[in-house]
């Protein structure tokens, strides 16, 4: 139980009291196989070099850190933004899927199944599968299919099969259920490419390691900008929590305050209840009987009632905090960041900015140096943001 902060989990996949491998027997052998394959690949210099080359020459890494002077002046803090929005496919999701797709190929799997909420992970997975010649099936909640039509089209154009999920809340949670059911039946030749730091061991660890590149780059970039210093605060939005895990990993051993911002309607840490769903023990929105509750968020990517187990652990030991912001604060942040910086954040990423806007001069004192992870760009959300802003105007 004495793993260093953001080091490897225990042998059974626990970060403190969270994590593990709570899956039905048919997929247990695949999880064990994946754990061993990832361990070997991650220790293999050739695999790392191949992944690095794809990240550099295909995805466009390293992504820059941009200092946002106008926003900084407005808020009285120094604002540095890690530009994951500039990656190929428009978000940090590509970092993870390139890693998993390479691993799938190395394991001899020729099919990949994935779940998606906002569609970013689905698009990234479809992209990596096209690149490596793998078959791709993406499960997406029917509600999300409707609010992210363009991403559905992108996935299909990339050769993926998109399956709308009509069970349960018809959002991300149920897309995960269907992807798991599909995997149970096809596990012999299929890899399940989970999009966040959730699911059974080794996924939370593996996905964080594939996203660690965000934090490692940002650490060096901040050192350049800050004369060898580090930011006082690191902010990232959290659904499952992969972009946050990636950027936190670069600063876990520093004094920087790590803040993961949840959607008010999907605040698993805020709910303060331990639960087990989708393969791991973590914090979970649930009722008195243990039925998992549906999350409600303007952002399809954060519409998830759980959170990655390592985040639950970081909250448990006090290394990171997980406040939440409301949909209205998020829409406001989209407007402010767009107008002051010419950066249109994805609705997910706008949660981190919304927290900064609310707290600058408060819990984030004037004079702070804040690193914000801009995990994705807002192109996919234009139709929805335009509708929401119109609605907002009407109600005023």
């Amino acid at each position, binding site marked *: 139980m004495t793993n260093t902060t953001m080091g490897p989990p225990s042998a059974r996949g626990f970060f403190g009291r969270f994590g593990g491998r709570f899956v*039905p*027997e048919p997929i247990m*052998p695949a999880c064990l196989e994946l754990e061993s394959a990832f361990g070997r690949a991650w220790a293999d210099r050739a695999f790392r070099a191949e992944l690095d080359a794809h990240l550099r020459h295909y995805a466009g890494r390293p992504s820059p850190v941009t200092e946002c002077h106008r926003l900084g002046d407005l808020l009285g803090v120094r604002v540095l933004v890690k530009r994951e929005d500039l990656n190929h496919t428009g978000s940090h999701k590509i970092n993870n899927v390139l890693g998993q797709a390479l691993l799938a190929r190395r394991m001899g799997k020729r099919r990949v199944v994935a779940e998606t909420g906002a569609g970013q992970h689905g698009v990234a997975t479809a992209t990596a599968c096209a690149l490596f010649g793998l078959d791709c099936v993406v499960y997406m909640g029917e509600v999300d299919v409707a609010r992210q039509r363009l991403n559905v089209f992108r996935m299909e154009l990339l050769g993926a099969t998109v399956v709308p999920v009509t*069970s349960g809340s018809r959002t991300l949670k149920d897309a995960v259920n269907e992807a798991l059911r599909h995997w149970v039946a096809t596990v012999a030749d299929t890899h399940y490419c989970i999009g966040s730091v959730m699911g059974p061991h080794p996924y939370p660890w593996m996905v964080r390691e594939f996203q660690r590149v965000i934090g490692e780059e940002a650490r060096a970039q901040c050192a350049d900008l800050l004369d060898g210093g580090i930011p006082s605060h690191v902010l990232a939005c959290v659904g499952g929590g992969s972009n946050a895990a990636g950027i936190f990993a670069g600063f876990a051993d520093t004094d920087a305050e790590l803040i993961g911002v949840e959607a008010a309607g999907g605040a698993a840490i805020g709910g303060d209840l331990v*639960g*087990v769903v*989708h393969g791991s023990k973590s914090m979970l929105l649930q009722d008195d009987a243990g039925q998992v509750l549906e999350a409600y968020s303007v952002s399809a990517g954060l519409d998830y009632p759980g959170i990655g187990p390592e985040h639950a652990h970081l909250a448990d030991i006090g290394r990171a905090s997980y406040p939440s912001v409301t949909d209205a604060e998020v829409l406001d942040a989209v407007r402010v960041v767009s107008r002051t910086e010419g950066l249109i954040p994805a609705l997910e990423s706008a949660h981190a900015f919304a927290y900064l806007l609310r707290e600058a001069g408060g819990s984030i004192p004037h004079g702070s140096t804040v690193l914000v992870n801009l995990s994705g760009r807002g192109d996919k959300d234009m139709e929805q943001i335009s509708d929401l802003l119109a609605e907002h105007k009407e109600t005023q």
Partner: protein
Amino acid sequence: MTTLEASLRAVGHPVLMPYVTGGVTENWLDYVHAAVDAGADAVEIGIPFSDPVIDGPVIQAASVQALERGTTPDTVMRDLAAYRGSVPLVVMTYYNLVHRYGHAAFARRLVEAGVSGVVLADLPMEEAAEWTEVADAAGIATVLLAAPSTPDSRLEEVCTRSQGFVYAMGVMGVTGERAVLADSARDIADRVKAVADKPVLVGVGVSTPENAALLSAHADGVIIGAPVMRRIAEGGSVADLVAGFRAALG
């Protein structure tokens, strides 16, 4: 030996264990009684969960229907007080409900409700120790799943640790009916029988009395879930369905 295992061993013919989702209708216990009266040797009772990842469309629909009626672990156990059969009851559910209820309280409640075994679909043996310690003390058998994908090296340990019986999954996939009996069902039955020192029941994909009869040469019995729940959804007779399986199994 657990009381569940002793009861199943004493049956003397191939075991027939139908499954009924608790709370699917107000009078769901009637289906349990109908199954018992038609020759069931044990009954598996599902406690519905919001995210049943190992269940196919038929049992998912039953779970949704039960949850919409306000079904909880407590309402299922309360209803079981009116159970008047003598065959053993096994509860099937997902681990979060047990975790939320509290291990000791859940085990106690199972005992009070007359349940002798439990299948927790998403609690593999590696994570089961905390629960089984409590369940063992209460005399509740924790049944483990064996899957076609379970390698031989692992299968032996699954069979050793499983209590009451070993639940052999006939196909790789979610619960539900299949048009023909999969070869995997016979294979897994044979593989489990070769190493298990307790009854082996095959579930998942056992769709017809003919399937069941074929399997009875390879295992100690069958579990039928989706066919029962489909029959209930269609408003048909559970008694006739179970009687058909009983006749085929002998």
